[in-house]
């Protein structure tokens, strides 16, 4: 075969330069010339491949004739044109991927869920075990597609059993960003921690860990902007930063311009051999609360209205480790995950904010609290998994200032034990039985039994790590 002569040196240089960072400004004429050369290169190349394939086909045919005594199955013509892809057409062709999640449950709770509280921790967001008896869970509708060559979009709407609609996530992703950057904007679950980004139907237990409930009101969402950066190394390293309006607990809506909350995080991860993979991370959230009102029992036994104004800082350390023999999770696999939360709040605290007791008093306030959970889920045979989880919160140190006259610093450590077994007959359905013993208030034990189903319709979901 002749030495290739169709790659002019000038072309190589031009391509090398055009591929390098935008230091080299080519004129239109240059660009046109390069394009033309590339086109010629492609044509030459394709012609050569076709010629080659024809030669192979001929050689094969000749060989088949030679061995005609022992007939061979007919070899496929290598140069056969690939089948034309059956192009979708019509106005429906650009429909986005649509999926729906249906959920329902039966709950048997020994304590009244209306009276749920995590003693020593300010309530906010969606907390508690939910209602007793039969109820529909959140039904979720998800729509996603590439918007154009620059953006992808995703909308996830939650239909609650109370017949309200909430926009869980609605965001755009800029897919053409260079340097490993992934910008995302709109409403989204924050990338902090491990579980926060996952939707509730993807969790391994029916409810969020107590730490998520106490420190983030269940799950931390934001309206704002997120930028992730993936390091250009073989080890997974992701740095992320978010700014948002800060409406979500532990912050609150404040009717102000500017940034209401900020999040930064770093995640690292990788594989150890073929069977183990892991991810670990550190996250930090800073937000502000204004008139975060709730009721709290005071020393005299009154249900007092209290209010917090100030800053809230949350730090999270998270890890997850997954084991599957040779990386094949189909038969058996194991997953261990845990997260540790710290929260520091500082500001003004008003006791009896509505004046119902006639004792309204505002004072400086600081709190330092923490909590964690650890859970393991083991798939012991195809379709069947068992899991166990332990939750614990530390009321830490709460300084009420002059309000200490009315309020007692918490000393009770809330905790919870949970066991579950679930059956996943396909990627699209799951039925779960969960039992928990929850001690979130001194002297009160709630025995919780849940039966839950999760059905997924429509577009194939992503296998998130």
């Amino acid at each position, binding site marked *: 075969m002749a030495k290739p002569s169709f790659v002019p040196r000038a072309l190589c240089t031009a391509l090398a330069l055009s591929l390098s960072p935008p230091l080299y400004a080519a004129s239109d004429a240059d660009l046109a010339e390069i394009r033309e050369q590339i086109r010629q290169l492609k044509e030459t190349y394709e012609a050569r*491949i076709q010629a080659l394939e024809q030669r192979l086909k001929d050689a094969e045919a000749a060989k088949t004739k030679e061995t005609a005594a022992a007939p061979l199955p007919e*070899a496929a013509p290598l140069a056969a044109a*690939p089948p034309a892809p059956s192009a979708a057409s019509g106005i429906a062709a650009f429909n986005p991927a649509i999926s729906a999640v249906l959920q329902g449950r039966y709950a048997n709770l020994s304590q009244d869920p209306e009276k749920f509280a995590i003693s020593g921790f300010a309530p906010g967001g969606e907390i508690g075990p939910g209602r007793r008896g039969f109820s529909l869970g959140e039904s979720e509708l998800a729509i996603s597609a590439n918007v154009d060559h620059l953006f992808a979009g995703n909308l996830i709407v939650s239909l609650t059993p109370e017949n309200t609609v909430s926009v869980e996530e609605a965001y755009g992703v800029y897919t053409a960003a260079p340097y490993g950057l992934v910008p995302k904007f709109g409403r989204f679950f924050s990338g902090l921690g491990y579980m926060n980004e996952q939707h509730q139907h993807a969790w391994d237990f029916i409810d969020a860990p107590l730490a998520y409930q106490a420190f983030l009101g269940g799950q931390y969402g934001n309206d704002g902007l997120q930028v*992730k950066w*993936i390091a250009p190394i073989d080890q997974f390293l992701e740095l992320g930063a978010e700014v948002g309006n800060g409406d979500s607990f532990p912050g609150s809506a404040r009717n102000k311009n500017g940034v209401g909350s900020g999040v930064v995080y770093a995640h690292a991860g990788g594989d150890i051999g073929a069977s183990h993979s892991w991810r670990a991370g550190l996250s930090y959230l800073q937000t502000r609360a204004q008139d975060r009102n709730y009721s709290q029992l005071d020393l005299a036994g009154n249900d007092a209205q209290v209010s917090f104004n100030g800053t809230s800082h949350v730090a999270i350390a998270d890890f997850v480790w*997954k084991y599957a023999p040779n990386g094949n*999770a189909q038969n058996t696999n194991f997953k261990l995950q845990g997260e540790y939360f710290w929260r520091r709040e500082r500001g003004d605290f008003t006791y009896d904010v509505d004046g119902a007791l006639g004792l309204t008093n505002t004072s400086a306030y600081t709190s330092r609290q923490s909590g964690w959970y650890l859970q393991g889920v083991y798939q012991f045979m195809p379709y069947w998994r068992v899991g166990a989880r332990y939750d614990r919160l530390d009321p830490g140190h709460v300084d009420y200032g002059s309000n200490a006259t009315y309020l007692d610093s918490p000393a009770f450590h809330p905790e919870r034990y949970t066991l579950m077994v679930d059956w996943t*007959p396909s990627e699209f359905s799951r039925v779960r039985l969960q039992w928990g013993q929850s001690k979130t208030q001194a002297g009160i034990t709630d025995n919780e039994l849940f039966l839950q189903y999760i059905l997924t319709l429509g577009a194939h979901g992503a*296998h998130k790590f």
Partner: protein
Amino acid sequence: MTSFKSWLLAASLGVWAVPASANLNVFATVPEWGALTQELGGDKVSVYVATNALQDPHHVEAKPSLIARARNADLVVATGAELEIGWLPLVTQQAGNPKVQAGKPGYFEAAPLVPMVEKPTRLDRAEGDVHPLGNPHIQTDPRNIARVAGPLSARMSELDPANAAYYQARYKSFSERWTAAIARWEHEAAPLKGTAVLVQHKGFPYLLDWLGMREVAALEPKPGIEPTTSHLAEVLEAVQKQPVKMVIRAAYQSDRASQWIAERAKINAVALPFTVGGDDAAKDLFGLFDDTVQRLLKGAQ
């Protein structure tokens, strides 16, 4: 602001300084395309294979290690036909690498280049894990490997024109050896023509079609659904009416169902490597088919 700019500059310089060792960083989703890219690219490519032969390619997660590798890839080589639908779109979106997004030259799919079989006439999840575009396990027919090799080589040249001549020469050499090997395998496997078999998962239509073998039944009641006792009993009944020589399965699958039926139907249970790395003999693409043919011949005895 100045410090931010200098940080950005440092970061971007870092990015551009990375691809040093090889000219083309290739992210292959499954071992067969990793092996093919290596054959065609020689020492001008650095190939990362996202899965191994003992993994079920349908059930892979978007692991951190995959995102990190896709971040630096110049070319993603995938099967397509929705084999990787559960994880590859998520990996490429999270990797922050616009070069390898679907539709870009840095994203290559093999399935559109081969004639697909088993396209479902009824798209319904009640039929199991069906693939709307047809059966995606195209690598079990070596003629499909040949169909993919040419366009893949051309794509590599397009992305790395400086080495186009090198890629072309390697393609020529591979193609000649491959054509000869196909003729050899077909000659060796001639006695298998017409052999009736059971399959555990519907993973072998291309292989059976190539060698003129017949699939009587699958042990999975629906694609991707684990064999049940009642379905196995039906298969056993079918086998008594229509004798088969063996039951075949891929290396990544559990042997329980195959062994169950093999004992009762008095047939051989054959584990095929399915892809490169599926067993010790299947070290490369040539070894894969050498071993597949030998195991089938042994199983048919």
